[in-house]
Structure formats: C-alpha cells, structure tokens
C-alpha cells in the first residue's frame, strides 16, 4: 500500500518542534515506551525540556498502551492536552486516540493495520506501511518486532533530530544483547530514517528554534528521581514488597544501595518491610520503606509505633487508583487521608507530596532531613503519573543535596532523657552501642513512657507526652516557609492543589488569565504540618477551588478540601474533583473553573 495524504482546506500547517506534542498509540509489546524514552533522553541531551505521559495495561500479556511526549524550549509544566502528531499502530489505536489529535494535526498510521475514516477532514493523514517495511528491513524473521525503531527513524527524519545520538542510544540499549539483536535494531531504525517523507513536508513546516545554552539536564522518571533522591538523602537501608507503581523504586535501590554500603531487602510483606526499616532506623541507619495504597494500609500499625517510639522513617506511597486493587496502572490522589491518618491513636507525622520529577528528587531529600530532625515518620506521597513520566530537569548540585548520615555514638548521661519534654518537643534519641555513663539504658517502646523511656501509662504522663509528640510538628510548622501564590496575591478565583496537579493547574491559571479571569493558584506541598498563611491567602480571594484527583466524597469535598475546611472552617472552599484515573488536562480545569464560578455567581444555573 502506498502512502496516502489528504489535504485539508487550510494551507501549510506549522508544527513547532519547540512545543510539539507527540502521542504514540499501540500495544504494550510494541516497545512504544522505549521509543518514547529514547526520544525524551535525546531532547534532554539537546538541552530541550521534555515531559512525558504513558499508560500501560495492568496485565502482563499486554493491551493498548500509549506514550505521549511534549518537547519544549522552556520549562514545561504539563504533558499537553492535545497532540500535534498522533502515531497509530492499530485500528483500535486510531479509534481510541484520534480525539486526542488537535484540529489540523498530523496522523501517521501503520498502513498495514489501520484504515482511517475517509470522511475525516479535520486532520492530515499519512499512511506508512510500517509493519511490512520493518519486516523487510530486518529480513523477515522477527515478525514486526522493531516497528518501534522504524518509527523512531521516521520521527528523527521528520523532525530533523540528531540521528547519531539516537543511534548511540540504540547501541547502548542493545549492545549487551549481542549483534544478533543490535544489527536488526539498527536496520529497522535506518529503514525508518530512509523513508521518503516528502509528502509530510508538503503539508507541514517544521519550525526549529536555535537551542539556547542551558544548565546540564538529566532525564529520568519520577521513581528514578525518588530512588536516587533517597540515596542522596543518606538512606542506606530499605525494605519493601512489590506493587505497581512502587516496585521500580525498590528495584533501583536493591541494585544501587550496595554501592553505598547499604542494602534494600525484599520482605515477605508490607508489614515486615516497615518493621525492618524501623529496626534499621533504631540501629542508627537512615531507613525507608514504601508501597502503593494497599501496602500503606498494611503499614499503619507500625507508623503509629514509629510516632510513639519517635523513630525516624521514610514511608513512600506511590499512589494509584483505589480502593483495593482498584486501578493499578492509573493515577489518583485518593490516599491523602491514608497518609495523614493511617495509624491508631494520635499520630502526628510529616506528609510531603512532590509535584514534578525534579521536585521528587529534592523533596525526598528534604523529607529525610526533616524526619531525622523531628524523629518521626515522614510519608512521601508520589503518584502513578510522576512515577512513570520521564522529565528532563536541571542536574542537581550534589554538593548541596548529598548527605552522609552519621549517628551520634557519643556516650550519654548521666541521667540522660531520650524523650525529654523540651519546649520544641524534639528530644535526642539513643541507638544501640551508645554508652550510658550512669549504666542506665533506655528501651524504646510502644507503651506510653516517661522521659527516660520507662512505661508509664498515667493520665499525667500520657497528656504530657501526647503533647510533646504533637508539639514537634507545631515547631516544624513554624519553620516551614509560608505558602506562596502563583499569580497575583489577591483576586477573584484561587485554585488550590497538591502533588502532581501543580503543572496543569498553573497552565490553567495562565490560560484563564489570558481570557481575562482574575485567577491565581496556591500549591500545598507540605500536607502535614500545613504551611502557615493558607488562611490569609484564601481571605484575599472570592472563590476557592481545591483541584484534586479524588472523589468529592459524601459531603461534597475532596480529601484536601475536607482537610482545609476542617482546619480553617472556611465555607468558601469548594472542590474540583475527578476520578477518571488520568492526569488533569488543562482544558478540564479551565472548563470546570468557568462553570463553578458561574454556579457560585448564579446558583440557579
């Protein structure tokens, strides 16, 4: 089948390479992710920004899967709502994703598998027999494996990408697998690169700005940033149990921690994992565990223990859709309540949620520092979309971010009080091996205890120590920087968000401001304790909407909205929620804000 191109009524379309959004749709076995990954890495190495989004089927045997990539000249915030280019490998890919293509966009489809709607005039259609050409290039033995590399060659040519650097990456990937794998891979790539794309050239003008010099960039997904951030933070022990989308964090740490003299154990379950981490933390090693929602539920008893015994420990939750097994390969922010409250008794703890891959790295370093300073558990709430998206970001300065933790082993006492009721609430813990000069040694304990660590369940002691454990978090609250507003400090509408929705929320603010709305946003990074000043900011706006990827709940408010309403008793706080398992699109927020503002102004509408 030859290539087909249908001209729309418009003239020459433009695609800016500096802002292009490419969506590749196929099945999970097609290696779409590795193409996406290599393209992202290339853009990163070319000092362009890149941000990606991908979906995987939750079953191993495969199913539809996509990779979306946004390449940009400046710092990108979200993966982009609409694609400029859609690549469809199958009829179902075409059917399910054509609506993601912008009007006038370019559809490249595998002509061996896809027949586009002949009446569809909104897009430019270019068919390329990718399957048959790949088989031809490879020599007909490998079925259509390699189609992904053929496509990468085609895109390299189309966008005039640095082909030598892409070839380098193919070699990096396949060299270890031997020439039998590497040669066909390169053949498939070259075949794609050699394919005549002049037809596309007649339709589109690819605009490419000169690349400015920038800070060196690194390119990785959120789970990589989390694992390497943990290493930089000084974590040297971890334990976990596999679960999507957390597993790759533990897999990386299993491999990398030994290089730092540390270890990461696969435990028999999530309870054992956190117990091991608390044991290592007691022993004076910075320790972590992690999971996704189902596993965090299991860890809750020992989170309470760590609060009571004042043991610092990092607990990661890479959120997915719940409840229960829920949506294992989708995103949701429905574990906030769990992170804030998992555990019995009064259990103040630190909860931090990162908003980008870069922020994952820096925030995990911060979380670890805080937990050891305040001797309590820190819960780190990442999510599926951060875990799987690849982002380029300025390389961190390790001189600032890298920490080596050395526990205080100096002799203590006499009359040392490991749970001393200080004004800040912070006391100094003791680890095994430390000499107590008066010969009196502490036992760490889940029972209520006195300042020396001896069990004491009297009312007086319980009130005093409950207040001590709470006061630490109040001390931290005083030290956290006050919140800052994106956009003007006063106005009509304030959007509040947390976690990975920061990018789309800020892009929505930009767009709505362009349209004339008086709108700003506020990002809540520290969910426990909350930063100071949120109430003051809310006072300066007429409407407040908390944008969250979770349900609006029995009473009409999502999880952060409920918390803010409880803390600030402010009836202005309303919610914009969704539970489709996908990241917020800018247009979704924009239209929700418009209709909510309308509703509030004219409640009868």
């Amino acid at each position, binding site marked *: 089948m030859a290539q087909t191109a249908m001209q729309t009524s418009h003239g020459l379309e433009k695609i800016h390479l500096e802002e292009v959004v490419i969506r590749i749709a196929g099945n999970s076995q097609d290696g779409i992710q590795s193409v996406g990954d290599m393209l992202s890495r290339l853009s990163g190495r070319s000092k362009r920004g890149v941000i990606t989004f991908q979906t995987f089927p939750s079953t191993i045997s495969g199913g539809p899967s996509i990779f979306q990539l946004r390449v940009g000249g400046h710092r990108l915030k979200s993966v982009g709502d609409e694609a400029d280019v859609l690549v469809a490998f199958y009829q179902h890919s075409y059917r399910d994703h054509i609506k993601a293509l912008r009007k006038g966009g370019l559809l490249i489809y595998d002509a061996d598998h896809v027949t586009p709607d002949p009446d569809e005039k909104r897009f430019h259609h270019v068919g390329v027999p990718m399957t048959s050409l790949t088989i031809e290039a490879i020599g007909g033995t490998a079925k259509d494996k390699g189609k992904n590399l053929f496509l990468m060659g085609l895109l390299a040519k189309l966008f005039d990408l640095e082909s030598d650097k892409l070839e380098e990456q193919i070699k990096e990937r396949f060299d270890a697998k031997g020439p039998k794998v590497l040669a066909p891979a390169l053949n498939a790539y070259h075949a794609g690169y050699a394919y005549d794309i002049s037809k596309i050239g007649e339709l589109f003008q690819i605009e490419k700005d000169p690349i400015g010099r920038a800070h060196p960039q690194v390119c990785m997904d959120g789970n990589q940033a989390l694992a390497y951030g943990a290493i930089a933070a000084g974590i040297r022990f971890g334990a976990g149990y596999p679960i999507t989308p957390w597993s790759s964090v533990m897999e990386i740490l299993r491999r990398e921690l030994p290089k730092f003299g540390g270890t990461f154990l696969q435990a028999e379950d999530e309870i*054992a994992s956190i117990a091991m981490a608390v044991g*290592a933390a007691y022993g004076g090693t910075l320790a972590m565990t992690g999971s996704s929602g189902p596993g965090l539920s299991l860890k809750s008893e020992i989170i309470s223990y760590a609060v009571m015994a004042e043991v610092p420990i990092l607990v990661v939750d890479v959120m997915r859709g719940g409840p229960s097994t829920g949506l294992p390969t989708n995103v949701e922010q429905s574990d906030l309540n769990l992170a804030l409250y998992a555990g019995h008794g009064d259990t103040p703890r630190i909860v931090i949620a990162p908003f980008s891959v870069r922020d994952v790295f820096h925030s995990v370093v911060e979380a670890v520092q805080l937990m050891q300073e305040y001797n309590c558990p820190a819960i780190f709430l990442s999510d599926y979309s951060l875990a799987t998206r690849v982002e380029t970001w300025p390389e961190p300065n390790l001189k600032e971010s890298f920490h080596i933790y050395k526990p205080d082993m100096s002799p203590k006492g006499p009359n040392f009080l490991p749970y001393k009721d200080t004004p800040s609430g912070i006391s100094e813990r003791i680890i095994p091996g430390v000499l107590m000069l008066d010969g009196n040694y502490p*036992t760490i304990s889940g029972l209520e205890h006195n300042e020396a660590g*001896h069990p004491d369940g009297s009312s007086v002691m319980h009130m005093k120590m409950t207040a001590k454990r709470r006061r630490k978090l109040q001390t931290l609250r005083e030290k956290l920087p006050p919140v800052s507003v994106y956009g003007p400090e006063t106005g009509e509408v304030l959007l509040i968000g947390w976690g990975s929705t920061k990018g789309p929320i800020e892009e929505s603010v930009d767009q709505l401001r362009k349209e004339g709305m008086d709108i700003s946003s506020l990002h809540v990074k520290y969910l426990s304790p909350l930063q100071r000043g949120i109430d003051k900011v809310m006072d300066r706006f007429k409407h407040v909407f908390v944008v969250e990827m979770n349900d609006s709940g029995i009473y009409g408010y999502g999880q952060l909205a409920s918390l803010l309403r409880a803390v600030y008793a402010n009836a202005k706080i309303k919610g914009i929620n969704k539970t489709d398992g996908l990241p917020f699109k800018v247009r979704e927020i924009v239209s929700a804000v418009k209709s909510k503002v309308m509703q509030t102004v004219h409640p009868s509408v």
Partner: protein
Amino acid sequence: MSNELSVLGQIPEDILKATRKNLPSDHPTWCPGCGDFSVLNAYFKLNERRGMMKQNITTISGIGCSSRFPYFVNAHGAHFVHGRALSFATGLSISRPDLHVFVFIGDGDAFSIGGNHLTHTARKNVKMTCVIMDNHVYGLTKKQTSPTSPLGFKSKTDPWGAEDMPIHPIKQLVSAGATFVARTHAAMPEHLLQMMERAMDHNGFSVVEVLSECTEFNRGSFDTALARKGGQFRILEEKKNDGTPEDGKRHDVTDEISALRLANEPWPGCFGVFYQIQRPTKNENEAKHAENAMNKGVAASEIDRLQEMFNVMK
C-alpha cells in the same frame, strides 16, 4: 571500644560490663512462679559469662507477657509490636553486624500473628537468636487459645476445648529453614542456659523453644517433662562422631529428616539441639553484595558514585 573508653577516664567496670547484678532493671511484672523469670535469669548469666559490654547488648521483643522482657534488662532494647519483632530485628541485624541481637517472644507472637515473619526470617537465615517463651496460651490477654495450645485445651475462646491442630514449633522451624533449632524447659535452668549459649554461638538464625509455664492460666502444663513432678526430662543424644557402635544410633543434628522424626515423638518429647547446619547468612550475603559493588571500579567517594549515576542519565 576500650580505647574510646580510656578517653573518658575512669568508668567503673561494673558500669561497663554486664553482670548478674547490674543487668536487672525494673522488677519483672510477671506473676509469681511464671516460667519467664528463669529465662530472664539465664539471659543475665549468659551475658555475664560472655563478658558482654552493656552498651552492646540489644534485646528485642514483641507484645505479650514474655515480651515485657527488654524492660527488665538494663541494656539497649526495643519493645516492638505484636508479632513483628523478628522483622524489626532483621533490619537491625543486617544494618548493625556488630551487634548480636536477641529476640524474646511468646508463642502467639511467634506462630500466630508473626508466623509468616518467623518463616521468612528463618529462610533468610538472618543472624540473631530468637527465644520463644512457649506457654501454650495467650498470657497477657488472659487465657485465649494459642497456636500451640494442645487439642482439648479449655480457654476463654475454646470453652469446649481447642479443636484446631496445634502448631509443632520444632517441625515448623526446621521446615522453614532455621539453621539452629533447640528445645528446652524453663524449669531446667542449666539446660536452658546451655541451649541459649549454643544458640548465641551459632552463626545464623538460631531459635530456642523454651517451655515456660504460665502459672496463672496454664498451671502444671509442662510437669510431664519434669522428673520432680513425676515426669521425665529426656535430653536427646547427639552424635559424638567417636566411632563407637552406640554413636550410630545417636542423633545427627545436620540431618533434617532425623530432626523431624525426633520432633514427631509424642508429648512431652525430648530436649536439646534438634537441628544445626551452616549456610550463608543474610548478613554475609548482603555484606558480599556491598563489597562486590564497591570493588567494581566505582568512584572513591559516595558523592562521586551518585554523580556517575547521574552522568548516565544525561
């Protein structure tokens, strides 16, 4: 350690070194006659005999009467949560190879709520000693059926007598992969101390099951294993490899099947070391991974090692 101490000047011996005098802390809250006292005494003696520095003794427990243990030992320790003491001790032992961690737990802790952890600590062969103070009942929560309660045992949760098949500690432990498994009786202090000492010497996961009578809720339960109560405390005979004909009949502690056969004898069975083998500990394996990783031409400083990892991601 002694260098460090001399810097501090004169610290009296009796503060540094563990003795039967300076190890007791609070007076135990156990009921009079409770078997657990004897285990505690054996632990004091053991640490004294070994010349342990107090600062290096680390005693971990779960929740239960038996698990009150660390409070009664004036040394470092942790009273953890019900059933998970072994996992806590795993994290501690792997990250602190300089300590020999002791874990004291009850039969509910070990075989019910913590059953999975017991199995997995055993198969990982984490270096530590676990003493199970088995009283065939839930003591702290006042007489419910435990996983080792014999059939017919009347408790608050089995008013008509226990019907669930009791777990056999020794069979369970040997099958799980524990590399040292011994059984003793709290009323036989010499034997108890001997077993704890051999367990401490073992390089790997060593477990001692101690029949420790709950005088409050299960009085007389282990009398059949005591001569002075009209029973018999039979110590199993270990092979001596002395070439004599009678040695052929003695128990080979490295023989798993023979250990299981001995364990299968009817109540009260015999006492001693049922099983002991050597295989790499989790601690050794992890240390080896770290050593290999650090010998593989990685950068000298940790920060440079991480920098190298970032360089690959550019």
